[in-house]
């Protein structure tokens, strides 16, 4: 079964639609990249999927319709979202940030410690800073923490908004290698919105371009 199915999606702020009719299907263990310049609507597309903006159409996560639900309920149905600004909890420690991510899972939350260990295999640097307030991490480390936190919720679909932002080309390449490993081992679907076409295209199973409110294959 498909991880993410989007049909005829329209989304916008207030009365103005930013895009009109986006269709997108992404299967399990797939990385789908949505390219587009600044202002093309990539961020709005991801926000629409997680219920942060007004939306019409159909969105299914693992076959379950989620459109119209509150963001926290959509997350609880298996859609993780790492926003452009990362949104780590600055005063909380790295470990606390990761544990918060597990609240996306239904009761009873078993295996949280195993999941922590798994996140450290992808991002060893987080383990080194476990007791440190997240606000003291570098920008790149905060990005890793945000991805790790989303993984703690065991998402079926993981949305990443410009994960390469602020990273050097070398670090970007390594991050995408890690994402490929995550998609392969966790079995979920990863949707990446990116400006950086080269780094993303190397690991992507499919690349779409968002242009003038339409998704082009």
């Amino acid at each position, binding site marked *: 079964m498909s991880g993410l199915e989007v049909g005829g999606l329209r989304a916008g702020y207030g009365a103005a639609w930013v895009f009109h009719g986006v269709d997108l299907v992404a299967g399990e263990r797939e990385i789908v990249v949505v390219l587009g310049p600044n202002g093309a609507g990539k961020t709005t597309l991801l926000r629409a999927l*997680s219920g*942060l903006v007004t939306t019409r159409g159909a969105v299914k996560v693992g076959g379950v319709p989620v459109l119209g639900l*509150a*963001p*926290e309920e959509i*997350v*609880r149905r298996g859609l993780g*979202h790492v*926003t452009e600004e990362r*949104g*780590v*909890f*600055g*005063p*909380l420690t790295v470990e*606390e940030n990761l*544990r*918060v*991510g597990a*609240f*996306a*899972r239904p009761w009873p939350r078993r295996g949280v410690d195993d999941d922590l260990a798994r996140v450290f295999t992808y991002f060893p640097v987080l383990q080194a800073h476990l007791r440190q307030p997240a606000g003291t991490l570098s920008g790149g480390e905060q990005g890793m923490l945000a991805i790790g*936190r*989303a993984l703690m*919720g065991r998402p079926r679909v993981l949305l990443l908004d410009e994960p390469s932002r602020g990273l050097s080309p070398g670090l970007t390449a390594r991050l995408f290698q890690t994402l490929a490993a995550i998609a392969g081992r966790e079995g979920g679907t990863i949707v990446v919105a990116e400006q950086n076409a080269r780094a993303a295209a190397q690991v992507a199973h499919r690349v779409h371009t968002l242009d003038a409110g339409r998704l082009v294959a």
Partner: protein
Amino acid sequence: MIGQVFHGLGTGAVYAALALALVLVYRFTGVVNFAQGELAMVSAYVAWQLVDAGLSYWVALPLTIAVAFGAGALAQRLVMRQAEDAALIMTIGLYVFVHALAAQIWSSALRTFPNPFPGGPLGVAGPLGVVAGVLALLYVVIRHSGAGLTLRAVAADPRAARLSGIRVGRVHALGWGLAAAAGAVSGVLIAPVVFLEPGMMGGVLVSALAAAAVGGFVNPAGAVAGGLLIGVAETLAGTYLWADLRVVVPLVIMLLVPAIRVRGQSRVRA
């Protein structure tokens, strides 16, 4: 003089408990709850009814705290949730409603409330001990429980908390419940000192607002220190300078807050 200081600390403990309640609501839901004193007043009536029914004070107190927790959470769910954009106005509406409801149920007649603590300077250890216990309990819940973790996540970044699957509305209700529980302690502690009546928390609220301001409305320890400071300052000013001066003390403290607070906060942040 020493006796007056002890007496002031006793009153200060009451302010500290209500200030703690104000800080909890502000820090976790971003609003100053003007109805906090009225919720505490109702809690004092609940405690009075329980003691009147024959329960011991030390059974009635925890029961009252539990009832207050539920009432606070319920107030958030039933009232505050309806108008999150106008939260401050809603708390004033809640103030008026709870006040009128209490006057309707218990009338405005003055009632006496039993004082379980011995008189004299050492009696002050009782209220201080109760407030210290509440502070310790809150610390454990907020720093070392899963529920406390959701509270701190929501306070740090509500949208990121939402995107981590936290049901922010329920967390806000939890914050209101904890605050009402802390506030209940102030109501029960002040009731033997003033008479039990619907307007009993008016003056306490003003002092507690000033005390909360000392902690910048976000720092629990600062709010407790502010409460004790104001309690002592009021007593000393009222005894040695001029009885009516008591009323002015919280306002003077509020004016001095920028000077006191900046230092206190930088120490906390370091």
